[in-house]
Every structure is written in structure tokens, then in C-alpha cells.
């Protein structure tokens, strides 16, 4: 069974630029999560989708972050404009249902200069 795929693996941008991350969850998984992991900390949820609907985006900085999950499969997370404090690893995870085990992708390491 293929795992959660993410791209790119690394991205370096300058502040005020925009960036987008892509995630392909495990086939058949209805729930998709985006987490932000700052160095030395545990991941923190940014947004949760159930199929193509948003379940929880209370911790998403909506003035600069946006996310979508078209057709209830792949998802993209965008930051525009980026700030220095956005430097982190962005993890995508999926689960069969909302209450099930979450499986994580390899993450995208973002560096904002």
C-alpha cells in the first residue's frame, strides 16, 4: 500500500514570496490533515478535511495561509506572503476516518530567508 506522498521535500524562499505544498493521501482515506512542525516541537494542526469539506481550520492563519482539497483526494497548502516565522516542516497526514490512526507523509521543509 502506498503511503502519504508530499512534494516538494525542501523549499527555500524569501520573505513575502508565495509557496505551495502538495499532498496525496493514502487511497481511500477520507480525512486529511496539515500540520506545522517547528524545529524542536511536536506538530500542530493547521487544517483538517473530511472528504473535500473543512472540519477544523481554527489554527490556520487565514490572512496568509490557504488550503483546498479538490475532489476529496489531493490537497494543496499555500502560504502568501511568507514570513520568517513560517520556517518549519509541513506535514500531511491521512486517516481512514476521523477517529482512526493518522499516517504521515515525509513532510516539506520550508526555509524562509
Amino acid at each position, binding site marked *: 500500500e502506498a503511503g502519504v506522498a508530499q512534494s516538494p521535500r525542501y523549499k527555500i524562499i524569501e520573505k513575502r514570496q508565495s509557496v505551495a505544498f502538495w499532498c496525496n493521501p493514502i487511497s481511500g482515506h477520507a480525512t486529511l490533515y496539515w500540520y506545522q512542525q517547528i524545529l524542536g*516541537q511536536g506538530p500542530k494542526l493547521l487544517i483538517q478535511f473530511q472528504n473535500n469539506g473543512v472540519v477544523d481550520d481554527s489554527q490556520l492563519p487565514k490572512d496568509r495561509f490557504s488550503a483546498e482539497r479538490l475532489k476529496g483526494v489531493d490537497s494543496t497548502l499555500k502560504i502568501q506572503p511568507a514570513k520568517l516565522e513560517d520556517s518549519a516542516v509541513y506535514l500531511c497526514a491521512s486517516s481512514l476516518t476521523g477517529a482512526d490512526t493518522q499516517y504521515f507523509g515525509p513532510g516539506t521543509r520550508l526555509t524562509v530567508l
Partner: protein
Amino acid sequence: AQTVTQSQPEMSVQEAETVTLSCTYDTSENNYYLFWYKQPPSRQMILVIRQEAYKQQNATENRFSVNFQKAAKSFSLKISDSQLGDTAMYFCALPTPTNDMRFGAGTRLTVKP
């Protein structure tokens, strides 16, 4: 509110020995899951073990086992016969009622040859 506390930022163990990582948590839920995830330097978050709170029997996966004490809200991970490949960050995690996974700050485990 769901909280997870890992009080050991770093630990080390000799190869082939046993080590126990501590985790305490707080929740008002009665039925819930608890997880231990491993994050090696390569960054991919991998599920180690899962415990269902309504089960009194402690979960076991090969060399990994937990000591789950529901009344004390304690969920420790025991790694037996430690191997070099066990070197990683270990995160204890507890889902919220909306399935937002709350992670502890992590314990960095180093297995020494």
C-alpha cells in the same frame, strides 16, 4: 482541553538494553486512543503503537510495549532490546474530540553502540 506532557527532552540507552519513555496526558473524554509516534532524522513520522483507553490490556508491538494507567493518565513506552535504528524523536499523542492530534514536545532517544 487535551494536553500531553513528555517530561524527558532527551534520553540515551545502550544497544540491547531497555528504556522507558514517559508521557502524561489530560482529557475529559472517557473513550479515546493514545499513540506513540517515532520520527527518525529522516523526518517521516511513523506509528509505533496504539492503545485504546477502554482496553485494560497494555498494547504490545514486538519490542515496543506500553504501560497504560488510565486513572493516573499515564502512558509510558517501553523499548526492549534497543537497536541503533530506534534512535529518533518519540512523540506521545492524544486525539481531541474533533480528531486533531495533540502531540507532546517529544523525547529525543539516542541508542549508543
